[in-house]
């Protein structure tokens, strides 16, 4: 648990951070909360020669609403999101998901941006972000870039971020009326990571039918994904128990499930179906309770 030698800088501005990143390229790593990166370097599984600590860059941890958009600074901690009064009203799925991450100590330090760019296929945030749908904002030496969250996760520990970019903001739609959400996961007993985690965000029409739904799934495959086939079956329909069960059964179709000591592929796929069904049910119940 002793890392190799590395240099450390703590830039005060994004420009300085990007310059440092540009100078050192692939050998530099951005350090935010450190909860994914530090264990890797202590185990010498990652050996960056430069750590760029961005935690003191002002303004990167804000959580705010701009019209019908929620803007989350990449440095917002899990706890900050969990405890945000604004998000409780405007995007409750985020708080629910934050609560499922690690423990209080982890949530106090870990950041949403750090978690997303780490690209762990069993992390919690991707499920929620995919279910909500939205845009990621990157700053690079050549300027800013926007990317749809669905295009971000490429594989295990692999995302679409470029070596000279920093994730700065996550833009998500604020939750409208007649909507409900839920994040449910089967946690791996030792690590707390998701064996399977399913986030659901849905909106009902005036007649109680499913007007729109987003379902994000983590833990099942080699990258988190949005369960389009399940969503399509549900959109426009009344969400009966039978309908939910039948559509949830599609969640693992075409996915090659991960397999490890804690869950074989068939068990994981089964859990994904069960948790998808349960998360939809929970979101529906949540919508009912939020009806105003």
């Amino acid at each position: 648990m002793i890392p190799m030698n590395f240099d450390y800088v703590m830039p005060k501005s994004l420009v300085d951070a990007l310059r440092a990143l540009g100078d050192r390229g692939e050998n530099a790593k951005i350090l935010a909360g450190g909860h994914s990166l530090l264990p890797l370097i202590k185990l010498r599984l990652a050996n960056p020669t430069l750590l760029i600590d961005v935690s003191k860059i002002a303004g990167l941890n804000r959580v705010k609403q701009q019209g019908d958009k929620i803007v989350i600074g990449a440095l917002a901690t899990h706890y900050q999101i969990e405890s945000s009064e604004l998000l409780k009203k405007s995007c409750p799925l985020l708080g629910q998901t934050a609560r499922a991450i690690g423990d209080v100590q982890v949530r106090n330090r870990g950041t949403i941006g750090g978690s997303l760019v780490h690209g762990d296929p069993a992390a919690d945030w991707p499920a929620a972000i995919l279910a909500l749908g939205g845009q990621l904002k990157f700053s690079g030496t050549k300027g800013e870039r926007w990317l749809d969250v669905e295009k971000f996760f490429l594989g295990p520990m692999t995302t679409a971020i470029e070596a000279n970019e920093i994730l700065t903001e996550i833009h998500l739609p604020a939750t409208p009326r007649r909507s409900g959400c839920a994040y449910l996961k089967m946690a791996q007993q030792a690590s707390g990571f998701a064996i399977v985690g399913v986030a659901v965000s849905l909106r009902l029409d005036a007649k109680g039918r499913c007007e729109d739904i987003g379902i994000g799934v983590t833990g099942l495959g080699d990258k988190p994904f949005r369960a389009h086939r399940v969503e399509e079956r549900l959109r426009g329909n009344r969400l009966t128990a039978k309908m939910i069960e039948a559509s949830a059964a599609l969640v693992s179709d075409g996915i090659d499930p991960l397999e490890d000591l804690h869950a074989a592929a068939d068990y994981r796929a089964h859990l994904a179906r069960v948790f998808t069904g349960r998360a939809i049910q929970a979101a529906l119940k949540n919508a009912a309770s939020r009806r105003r």
Partner: protein
Amino acid sequence: MPVSKLVGAKVKRREDPSLMRGLGEYVDDVKLADTLHAAILRSPHAHARIESIDVRAARQFAGVVAVFTGAELKDQIGTIPTTADNPTLRIPKHFVLAVEKVCYVGEGVAVVVAEDRYTARDALDLIQVEYEPLPVVIDAEKALTAGSPVIHPEWPDNLAFSWQQEQGDVAGAFKRADKIVKQRLVHQRMAPIAIETRGVLASYSAAAKELTVWSSTQIPHLLKTHLAQMLKFPEQQVRVVAPDVGGGFGSKLNVYAEEALLGYLAVKLNRPVKWIEERRENFQATIHGRGQIGEVEAAVKKDGTLLALRYKVIADIGAYHQLFTPAIPPFTGLMLSGCYRIPAIAIELRAAFTNKMSTDAYRGAGRPEATYVIERLMDRVAGELKLDPVKVRQKNFPKPAEFPFKTATGLVYDSGNYQLALTKALKLANYEKLRREQKRLRGRNRYLGIGVSTYVEICAMGPGFWEYGKVEVEPSGTVNVYSGASPHGQGQKTSFAQIVADQLGVELDDVMVIHGDTKLVAKGMGTFGSRGTAVGGIAVYQAAQKVQEKARELAAHILEVDADDLVFSDGKFSVKGVPRKGLTIKQIAQQARAAKNLPATLSPDLAADSTFEPSNFTFPFGTHICVVEIDPQTGTVETKQYIAVDDCGKVINPLLVDGQVQGGIVQGLGQALYEEVVYDDNGQLITGSLMDYAVPRAADLPRLRLAHTETPTPVNPLGIKGIGEAGTIGSTPAVVSAVIDALAPFGVEHIDMPLTPQKIWRLCQAKKAVSAGGRR
């Protein structure tokens, strides 16, 4: 005890205020000037010949002071000791660093000593080792099968030792039996996971020719003797200090390679050397617990009466023996009778070498395995005979009047009232109501399970294992208590002070308990086997009594009265009939130093020591009840209720007892549901970190409901039995029993631990619920 103000009282742990504020002093907190740091290169192979080791680059690395390989040290440091008197025992040479070949992943191969920890670690990467991999055997049953890869060529059958015992007419009972119930049971390997990993700091004073070794150990005095032998050092020049120790659970009841290695390095380099174990090393190179595969068979009558038991077991001991490795599995055999009358018992134990870390004592050490065997068996008997599991147990209890009770394994249980603890637990749990609730919920496809385990265990290691205590009243009246016990979380700085304060009638705050330093405490054995208070506490108690007696003599001399004319009460000796004329312990201590004309038989101090060796073991017992609910769709287990009634004899401090029981229950539940050390077929440790090895967390548990009965033991004057391990022993079978009870509608009779959601789900898949509310 005549005076009892503090004994039995809920005195808060005096240890906690400093520990909770981070003021504890663990090995890594001990800082010495000019300290070097050691890092150990460990084998990545489970079995391989070392073809060559090239340490040149590491030696040349800036900041590196020394590098040693096993071959260089094999004649300098003796082999790692093991103790057992089994004549079949085969002891492979166990060097502090591997010589010629490695036999498990994590075995030390070379050591780097550097100016700082970072340099030492970096230099490890510069050592080139050429390995020639050898065939690996991980499974203990396979290891004992012909054709298995051989670990130590001198013993091609991989048999480490064997042990058998038979008493009573076993064959006859099996012929007479109405029913024979069999079960195969696997006790998985466990990692003890003390919060503080191991750590050693060694320092040599060339002037005093004294080697001091700070180690996170449970046995400073035993370690001192072994280190002196291994390092060929006069024992009087070795001092071992166990500072604050952050948990042991048996894993620090040992003599490890690193302890001798660091001692050697400190002398050789004439500078202090420190090594702090990393968590990954802790998984690989600190002993594991359990690791048994058994087949039990019971001969029973239709009414549930047990006639005989047969147990064949294979113990997976790993590649080498550690200190008590060969002593643990026989404990399982001895305790197989559980809290039942079983007229005939046969045990056949074979221990196998495997390419893994050694197993050794882990909280319970052989007894959890025994309790699990007999308790699972009782459930199976109840299932086969369609009887209530509680009734089957009751039927086979010896009655209180039958104590001391002799088992067919050769033990004599000191005292017990098993029915009393069971009745109390059933009442607390509202057992009958729970059964009705279970039936009702099954009708709604909800699966509640109720598990009952009645256990007895063996504590306070009897004849042959003693403990030392000394009590000294300083002239100012403060009291020092020296103990050879080496508490590492049990709280004896509190409980021993309670015992002594009561005996001397002084304030608790005036009593200081000193332990864990071989220079300050003349002798000792240490803390293990739930003996701290039941043996160490008695030694301290006896020493305090002697001090009280001596104080009486001194008081008689000072007051010029006959000793028999003095009465002792509230810390004061006063003259019978003249209550105003008297002296407190404090005054006696003060005046003793300046006493004039003392008789030759009386020294001018107030101190005494004592050694206590119990005549027999003690046998604490109790009943644990666990209630769970299973989600058959996911296989998850929710622990809904937990009730424990434990009887550890007389209680010195109920808070400490409950703390021990709570921790123990949680650890036992960890074995039942979560924990398992897993090696793959190549001997790679799959559960090598806390990201994969699951220990229970507070949130996994319901509030535990704890109660007690109190049946004193006759084997020591305070009637104390010991409680350090009982929770672990009672809880594992209770939890497993509850889960399997919940799965009864699915026709499940047994599942091997840990009862992971995946295993449970598979069983539920294989057999859909038979019928709601059907068989209980």
